[in-house]
């Protein structure tokens, strides 16, 4: 059973992620009054990329991207997808937090080997942005874990299934709002699209990727979209009893986030970090204090 889950959950994540990628392009096009590409366009892109003959800058260039994709895939194994969570008993939220590191770190190592300054700038921005949103995110997650007195995400989901969504329960409301405020930053979309920023720094960490490397990076991107939203759904929207509801919840969140993406221009990196360290952090901090008071 666990083996099936282990295969199933990454596959599902991959499909949903790629679907979201296509969906985002389509919806963005519609918002911008365009016809837009077919919804399968990411798949076509990935196929094309896999068939291209790329250049490699060295062993680490290959390994880094593998590392990054593997990190994302493993992370999916720790996330409860509705009732599916293959690695529920292997470390809980803390491992998830750490696994979220792997993907950017892998890309960073791989990109670093390519010796392209654009890449380095992108990576530097990625890490700064990550530091920016981790401050509120950690406060939020700690508030959750402190409130539910567990570090296992499965427990958090199951408690919410019994007692209602965290997002609408009072002590965690502020944390939830803070999470919503930083969700675009976690997903890396506008107004926090400073990392890729293809107009500025030639798509940053991706600058030297072509062919299969870019395909892997695209898949990784799709997975990270999935992870960011699935984490929110699990933590604040109570997960789901079956896959369909889970998917619907994710879809709603994603479309809402896309509107933000379409409506807002890109921030500069300092502006982004200042924003992240101001309002979401403040909310998360107050939320944490409320949680502590409630716990007393």
């Amino acid at each position, binding site marked *: 059973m666990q083996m099936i889950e282990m295969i199933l959950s990454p596959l599902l994540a991959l499909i949903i992620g790629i679907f979201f990628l296509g969906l985002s392009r389509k919806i963005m096009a519609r918002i911008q009054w365009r016809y837009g590409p077919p919804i399968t366009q990411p798949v076509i892109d990935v196929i094309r990329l896999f068939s291209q*003959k790329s*250049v490699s800058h060295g062993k680490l260039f290959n390994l880094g991207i593998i590392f990054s994709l593997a990190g994302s895939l493993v992370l999916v194994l720790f996330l409860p997808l509705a009732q599916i969570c293959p690695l529920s008993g*292997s470390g809980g939220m803390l*491992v998830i937090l750490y696994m979220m590191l792997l993907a950017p770190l892998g890309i960073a190592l791989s990109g670093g080997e390519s010796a392209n300054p654009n890449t380095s700038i992108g990576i530097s921005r990625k890490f700064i942005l990550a*530091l920016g949103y981790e401050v509120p995110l950690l406060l939020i997650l700690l508030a959750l874990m402190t409130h539910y007195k567990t*570090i296992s995400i499965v427990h958090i989901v199951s408690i919410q299934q019994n007692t209602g969504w965290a997002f609408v329960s009072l002590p965690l409301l502020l944390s939830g709002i803070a999470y919503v405020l930083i969700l675009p930053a976690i997903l890396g979309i506008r107004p926090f699209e400073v990392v890729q920023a293809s107009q500025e720094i030639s798509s940053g960490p991706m600058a030297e990727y072509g062919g*299969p490397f870019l395909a892997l990076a695209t898949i990784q991107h799709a997975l990270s979209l999935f992870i960011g939203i699935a984490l929110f759904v699990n933590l604040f929207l109570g997960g789901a009893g079956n896959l369909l509801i889970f998917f619907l919840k994710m879809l709603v969140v994603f479309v809402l986030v896309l509107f933000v993406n379409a409506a807002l221009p890109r921030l*500069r990196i300092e502006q982004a*970090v200042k924003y992240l360290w101001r309002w979401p952090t403040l909310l998360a901090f107050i939320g944490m204090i409320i949680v502590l008071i409630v716990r007393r």
Partner: protein
Amino acid sequence: MSLELLLIIAFGGAIVTYLLGKISCRIREGFAVLISLSLVVMIACLYGENGTESIYFHFLGLPLIMRTNMLSWFFAMAVSALGALSVIFSLNYMKNRERTDFYYLMLLMVNASMLGIIFSGDLISFFIFWEMMSWSTFLLISYNRGPAVAAGLKYIIMSIIGSMAMLVGVLSLYATYETLNMATLAELIGSASSGYLLFLLIIFSIAFAIKNALMPLHTWLPAAYAEAPTPFNGVLSGMLTRMGMYGFLLIMYVIVGATRALNLGSGLFKFHYILAWLGAITIVIPTFIAILQDDAKKLLAWSAVGQGGYMIVGIAVGTNLGLSGGIFHTLNHAIYIVLLFMCVGAIQYRTGGERDLNSLGGFIKKMPFTFIGTLLGISGLVGIPLTNGFVSKWLIYKTLILEGYPFLAFAALIGTWGCILYCYKFIHHIFLGQLPGKYQNVQKAPFSMLLPMIILSFAILFFGILPGIPLKIIDTIGTSFGFKSMNVTIWGIASETGTLNTINIFAAVLIVSIIAWLMLKIGPKAVSVAQEDTYAAGAAIPKDKYHYTVDFYNPLYRMITPYLKDFIDAFYMKFAHWIQSLCNGTRRVYTGYVGNYVMYIVLFLALLIFIRLKWSL
């Protein structure tokens, strides 16, 4: 008997090594390696010898006692192993330098005194070895001259302040209980008032906090680490600084005892809680300062300060998980920081002492093994799952969250995220990016440098995937302090509030990596290109300039730099200057005019008589 023999071999070996150096370098080096390896073997043989005490000497009527238990075995093993690796690493690094005899003497001496500290069964021998460690370290830190001199002076002054505080503590214990045997003290101290215990803990904490570079007392460390000879950095950062940790464990859990130590003070102002907060501050601020550093060794130094905070937080929380996390982190940190310093050493060895991050780059092609070592080192430092740093950090986080210290947990976690920034900066600036033209002909690190690096790299993975092996030992330490035993399995820890199972993670990561690799293999094979062949908007790559290193995290720097000056150091320096001017003022008493001097004499006589009349003593 074997403990005395051990110390005699350790100290005698140091001196004999020095003398052999007068005969021949090769014999000396061989002997140094032999001594340090034989110490490792001897200590390994001591495993499981619990609670044997032996009086080996009398000092001022005090019996000096050596004893073994699990705690000391654990630390001794780490000290001797890392010491041996450092010696091996030194062989090539120190070749063709002046005063290598002296260097080996002091290196072995530091190791020997650390072993002395660890095996001490009474506080006086603890203190003696502590002081010997301090001054021999001082001599080694200053070894490199130049800025190292100031660093050494700073170190020894702070160290003396610490040891003076400890001396007061030791002597006050002696005055109160008439014994300095740790075991006896631990029994006797039950009758002490909580005020006295608090005094004891604070006065010892000053000493240990200075050694462990806890935040307001950390200022010696960055300069000292940056300037010490790099092979010695391993010993310095790995174990010597962590003698402070050992000291904390000793005073809090062995002598004062867990239950008493954790109940001192009231409300939020409990001793251990404040200590934990200091630890948390020590995690956050140095981590962010480390991000700003451009000097490889300074960066690692600040990172070591920050990592020290984890250990303090871990043991100060006072749960079995936290304690184990703290102790385990001490070991893990020692392993990876030694590895990282060795990597810097290898780079320095091949580049002629270059350690400015901005002028390196692209060494991955030239020194691949060193790179792998560094990669594993920073993985451990960040705490990537499946490296050893993860397990210990996991334990600490978990206990912080479950015990209801979310802000401490926040500090610890944010420290990790800051850690990624400087770790990546470290590896990127040295190994990735463009190789400067002058380093085109750099060779691989020699084997004697690679060997310790390889061993340590394996250790990182080994302890990361099989954390149960050290954790079992640490668990016995914890239970000997009176904590509940953890449910340690070989793969991690099982408990109802969240378990850790490294083998699952390992298997998953392995399988998934293979899948990802296969995915990469779907496409046509990639063509390897030279490093110059990167995208530069169609232009040719400028030589030596196409590497983004200076102000790597520039936007972040602009935001945090104003808040991250080392205020504490500045304050201490100001204080030192103030003392200096005070001293300068004081010596004006001796005016040089003999009339004044005679006046002093007359005044003194008058003072004596005045006191007599006033108080009729």
